[in-house]
């Protein structure tokens, strides 16, 4: 174990450089730079608010904030897991030539998406202020859903990056899966409107619980209870363990397959 920690510390500089690279490339040569990350979710929120507030108006109070919380969670998972998935294949030329701990590649992608997540929190703050949402001290607990979201996405990203090396068509399948997952996450609808059996499925979706927890601390001013913590932690732990285990078993074969 201590050799793993030592190895990680030796390469933490590289992890930093990889994250910096992604962030730089994303924002380089666009006039508005970092601002895009704020404007993009804001624009999406405005469009979706206009469209959906007419459909679900009776059911959801403060629809813009409700929508935004769901969107921030799902968009992060979407971006982080997709980018992490292609990270091993994308760095094939490097993996063939230099020894680098390979988990750094999916990890750096999840971390650079995390930088984007922080900027979309600026957008969320703007929406909270603009809609006059009453803010309570529970807002300080927002790091809890964010931590769960990060760990879950990291576990899934590591798992997918290892699997896609052997099964290339997973990339296409995952695109479909993500679309399905989006509709199974209560981003713009309340869970209660669904028929019973669909509700069960939606509630098993880890992103549902993470989004609900974020809403509890941001807009409802309630402290998340033990049950919802368990519902968030269990999938995080499963994703991390399965992800790391599969990755560990597969990583020596990457060079032969990429």
């Amino acid at each position, binding site marked *: 174990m201590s050799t793993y920690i030592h190895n990680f510390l030796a390469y933490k500089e590289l992890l930093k450089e990889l994250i910096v690279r992604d962030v730089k490339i994303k924002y380089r040569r666009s006039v508005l730079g970092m601002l895009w990350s704020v404007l993009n979710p804001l624009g999406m929120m405005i469009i979706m608010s206009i469209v959906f507030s007419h459909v679900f108006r009776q059911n959801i109070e403060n629809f813009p904030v409700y929508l935004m919380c769901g969107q921030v969670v799902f968009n992060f998972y979407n971006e982080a897991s997709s980018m992490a998935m292609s990270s091993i294949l994308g760095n094939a030329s490097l993996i063939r*030539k230099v*020894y680098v701990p390979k988990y750094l590649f999916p990890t750096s992608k999840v971390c650079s998406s995390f930088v984007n997540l922080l900027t979309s929190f600026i957008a969320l703050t703007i929406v909270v202020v603009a809609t006059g949402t009453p803010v309570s001290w529970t807002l300080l607990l927002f790091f809890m859903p964010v931590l769960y979201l990060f760990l879950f996405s990291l576990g899934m990203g590591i798992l997918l990056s290892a699997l896609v090396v052997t099964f*290339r068509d997973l990339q296409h399948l995952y695109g479909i899966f993500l679309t399905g997952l989006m509709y199974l996450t209560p981003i713009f609808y309340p869970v209660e409107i669904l028929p019973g059996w669909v509700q069960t499925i939606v509630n098993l979706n880890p992103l549902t619980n993470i989004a609900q927890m974020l809403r509890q601390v941001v807009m409802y001013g309630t402290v998340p209870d033990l049950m919802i913590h368990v519902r968030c932690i269990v999938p995080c732990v499963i994703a991390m363990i399965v992800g790391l285990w599969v990755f560990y078993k597969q990583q020596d074969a990457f060079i032969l397959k990429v």
Partner: protein
Amino acid sequence: MGDSIIEVNDVSMMFRLYREHVDSMKEFVIKKIKHQIAYEEFWALNHINFQVKRGEAIGLVGKNGSGKSTLLKIIAGVLKPTTGSVKIGGTVAPMIELGAGFDTELTAKENVFLNGAILGYPKEMLEENMDKIIEFSELGRFMDVPIKNFSSGMFARLGFAVATIYTPDILIVDEILSVGDWKFQEKCQDRIQDMLDHGTTLLFVSHSIDQVKEVCDRAILLNQGQMLMDDSVENVWERYNQM
């Protein structure tokens, strides 16, 4: 480990040659049901044994496909041997390809930090030595330009400058000196000589007898994955020419 810095113990490397490459789930399921996942075994290296003492310079000689690069990759830790083991007693600077991990969207200066981090060099050291890197690579005017428009010579110069800014315990060089003009090649050779004088151990692959003779004390001859000889450069070269 005694006084040897590299110990290669009975290393063999097997690759699977798939007649059809199965890389999608659909194919995998179909082939698995039909029991059609067939491959041939190909042993790129067979029972390789040798040791290198601290400060020695070893040339690896052999025809194309003899397993030189596979062996270098195993020593560099990029590949894991199928059987056997390699023990390394120090830091390794692998120069299997110059500029591996350069990102063409970034500027030369940013790539110095990225590539340096890939090679495991601390950032402060890169900052301190930035002037030396610029001087060696002769890219003074181009350091803040994205490297996507660089020529292959410029790539190689930058890659070599970053990789050699620090004197590693073990330097692995795989035919990279064939890029660049003769003046740059000479400069690289001087830099390698300088490292050798500071006690670096060298593993060197080259098809040029002059280069091998000039830098190496000993040579190893590989042929089709077998180690044929481990002897002085002259003897190995004689045998190689008869092949």
